[in-house]
Structures are given as C-alpha cells and as structure tokens.
C-alpha cells in the first residue's frame, strides 16, 4: 500500500546518539553524540535505554530551536524491549502526545510514515519519529545473557546501541522531504533460525521495494540510493540475488545498500553486521539526512526491515514473520 504525500512533509532536524562500541561504526562521525557508558550512567540497561531516547529528542529540539516540549505535537517511537518501556518512560519525560509504534526494527520508518500522515492532515506542526535499541537490554530478552559464551554463526548480527529520531514538519524546499511511503505486508518464507534474520527479512524488503516501485511507476535507477535497514551482509546479498532473478542488472543492484551491513565496516567480530531498531534509525537520521542536505543524493528509498518474532514464538517452533516499510525522500 503506497501513500503519496502531496504536501511533502520535510525532515526539519535529526538526532542520532550511540553507545561506546558504536565508535567502531563507519557512521560514527555522523552521529550527534556518543556516550562512554552503555547504561548512560543509570542503574539499569533499560533506564540507560530511555535516557538515550531522551537525549536524541533533546538534540533535535536544540537543533530546531524548540525550547518548550509542548511545541512538539506528537512523539511516535518504539523499541524492542517488552512493552517498549524505554520508549514509554522517555515519553513520560517528554510529556507530549505519544503513540508507541512497534514494527520491530522497521519502526524507524513506520513511525516516520505516521508522522508524515499527521503532518499531511494538518494535525501536526512538529512530530518526532524514530526508534532505538540498546544492545544489553535487547540481547538479554531475545537471546542469552550478555556474558554467556555461546557461539554465534556467521549469519548472526549484532544489536546496536543507538537511537535515531527525525523532526517531521511542514514542507520546506531547502530540506529533505518525504514524498511517498509504503506500508509493508507481513511476509514469511519459513525461516526458523533466529540467528539468520537477514534471510528471514530479505523477502519482506523485496516485497515492499518491488511494490513501491511498481505503484510509483519507477525504476530502480530513478533512485540514487535504496537503503534497507538491517539485512546484514548476507541478507543484502540475498536481496540483490532476488532482484537479479527478476532481471535487475549489476548497475541497478549497485544502488542497493544496507545500513546493518555497513554499520561496523568489515569487522568480522560483528558477523553479518548490525541490527536492531536503532540501526536503521541512527543511519537514516544522521548520515542519509546529511547526504541529502548536501545534495549528494536527490532521491532515496529507505526501506527498514523488521523481524516480528519473540523468544517464545521461536522456542515454540514458529517461523519468523517479517515486515518492511519504506519512505521515499527527495531533495530539491
């Protein structure tokens, strides 16, 4: 389902913060701040997670010269912790109209789509949209204790500690603008291995990107960049192979990139790359936004991918349903 935003809501400002390990990220220099302590000097991982979200929002307000919280009309955000308590707790401090969004790691984009809709409606002047993840609090919930010595396969990915948020408002021709969005279906091709998220999510990304291009009557080459969220190195290869099978040429395949595959560079200790709701969010709402502003990119498609599993669902032998949401951003 493709939505065309006639009023072209703009990304007014962005805030991206990350944890200490993310200094190793190739996108490090684009982040607004990096904290030395994974827990943001709080008692628990989850409290640190909430602080990280608050900090990203504060950075946005500072950049946009918003001094009063109440000037923010909506806060749309999500994370991966049960019941999204870090986001809810951050929203308590922000104290503005808030809806928790959950599309797993695709929340970075699904929240931006809803924020664009609210802006298009005229209901919102300023809406903050985005998502975040904190390595320790996500690992303990989905996998093993952080210090447990389990062996991860080459297909595994590393959940990032990062948050990325965008302030979405009325159209400004000098800023990157969201012209269309696609809300993805839930796609499940039967992957059951929770250590192969790239393989589980690639079909969802394929489905969303293909339908976006088809409904918009576009070719891959109409874009300067099509960037998926966190397919990882192996997942990106699978996605490219899927497009190759539908007849895409090499120069078209070169337009595809993945935030998770590039996040930690070639460092093998992160296996297939980065993942987590903060992965796509922190790359889209820092590096990509800045590249659009400088004019390097004129039209990009950001397609965040999410695996909709829980530890319970895979222990019960269920396959991993996945989704992908996309936004098309242009710079005049």
């Amino acid at each position, binding site marked *: 389902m493709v939505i065309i935003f006639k009023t072209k809501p703009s990304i007014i400002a962005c805030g991206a913060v990350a944890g200490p390990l993310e200094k190793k990220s190739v996108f490090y220099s684009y982040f607004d701040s990096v904290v030395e302590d994974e827990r943001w000097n709080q008692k628990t991982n989850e409290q640190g997670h909430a602080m990280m979200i608050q900090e990203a929002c504060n950075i946005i307000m500072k950049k946009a010269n918003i001094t009063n919280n109440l000037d923010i009309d909506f806060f749309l955000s999500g994370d991966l912790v049960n019941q999204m308590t870090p986001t809810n707790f951050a929203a308590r401090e922000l104290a503005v109209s808030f809806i928790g969004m959950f599309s797993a790691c695709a929340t970075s984009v699904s929240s931006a789509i809803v924020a664009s809709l609210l802006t298009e409606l005229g209901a919102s002047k300023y809406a903050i949209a985005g998502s975040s993840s904190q390595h320790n609090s996500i690992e303990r919930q989905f996998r*093993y204790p*952080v*210090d447990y*010595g389990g062996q991860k396969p080459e*297909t595994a990915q590393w959940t990032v500690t990062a948050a990325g948020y965008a302030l979405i408002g009325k159209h400004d021709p000098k800023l990157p603008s969201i012209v269309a969005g696609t809300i993805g279906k839930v796609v499940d091709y*039967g992957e059951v291995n929770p250590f192969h998220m790239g393989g589980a999510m690639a079909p969802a990304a394929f489905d969303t990107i293909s339908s976006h291009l088809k409904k918009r009557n576009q070719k891959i080459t109409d874009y300067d960049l099509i960037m998926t969220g966190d397919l990882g190195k192996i997942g990106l290869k*699978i996605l490219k192979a899927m497009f190759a099978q539908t007849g895409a040429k090499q120069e078209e395949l070169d337009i595809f990139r993945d935030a998770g595959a590039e996040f930690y560079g070639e460092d093998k200790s992160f296996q297939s790359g980065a993942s987590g709701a903060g992965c796509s969010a922190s790359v889209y709402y820092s590096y990509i936004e800045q590249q659009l502003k400088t004019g390097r990119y004129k039209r990009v498609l950001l397609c965040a991918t999410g695996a909709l599993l829980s530890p319970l669902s895979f222990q019960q032998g269920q396959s991993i349903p996945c989704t992908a949401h996309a936004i098309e951003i242009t710079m005049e």
Partner: protein
Amino acid sequence: MDQQQYQQIEDQITPPTPYFKNVIKAFLVGGLICTIGHAITYFYIIFFDFTETTVGNPTAATMVFIAMILTGLGLYRKLGQFAGAGSAVPVTGFSNAVVSAAIEHKTEGLVLGVGGNIFKLAGSVIVFGVASAFFVALIKLILVTMGVVEW
C-alpha cells in the same frame, strides 16, 4: 517468487556452517581446558592432602572459580565465540552459564533477579544430568543384580 525458489537462493548465499573447523577448535580448546584441570589435580595431590578419589571437588571448584572471573571480565564470551562446544562442555562452561545469568539479573534484585534466574541456562543441564544419572545407575544396578558386572 515462491518459498521453494527463495529457499534455493538463500541456501546458495548463506555460508555453510564450518563443522570441521568448529570441531577442531572445540577439540583444542576443550582439551586445553581439561589439561589445565589435570594440572590443578596434580597440584592438589602434590601440595595438599588429596587422593585421586577426593581431588575432584577442589579441582572443579577451582575451574569454576577461574571461569567465573573470566566471565566477569567479559573474556569467557570471547572464548566461547572461538571455541564453541570446547568451552561450553567442560565444567567451566557450566560456571559461565550460571555466572552470566547472575550478572545479567542483578538489576532485578537478589531474590527475584539473581535467585530466580541464576539457573535459567544451567537449569536444563542439572535436570537432564540428574535424570540421566538416575537411569545409568538403574542400568548398573540391574547388571550387578544379574551378576554381569560388579560395583
């Protein structure tokens, strides 16, 4: 593209699990851990008043202690990624499973956090260890009663 076609593409691109390499690494690291354990056994026998039958307990306790320190320093996790079963199967792996769960749940308090979750991973080792020990003992009892073997 249907599920079967996709499966083919996925299998082609996904790197195969390097079973042989993993087995070699597990053998070497597991063997090294056991060799260290054996050295500790001799240490206790030579310098303290232990015999071959009584030395097992202090040896296991020492190995568990070393693994606990390594877990706390975040090093056992790195060893585990390299060695796989080699560092998971010896008693040090059991220690790592218990200690990592304890560290993880410290923030939820001593009783509900540490106490309630410390055997989250190691619990199944205990359950199946006790259950299989029972059946092995039962088989031996039957064989002894039949006069096939002696205690």
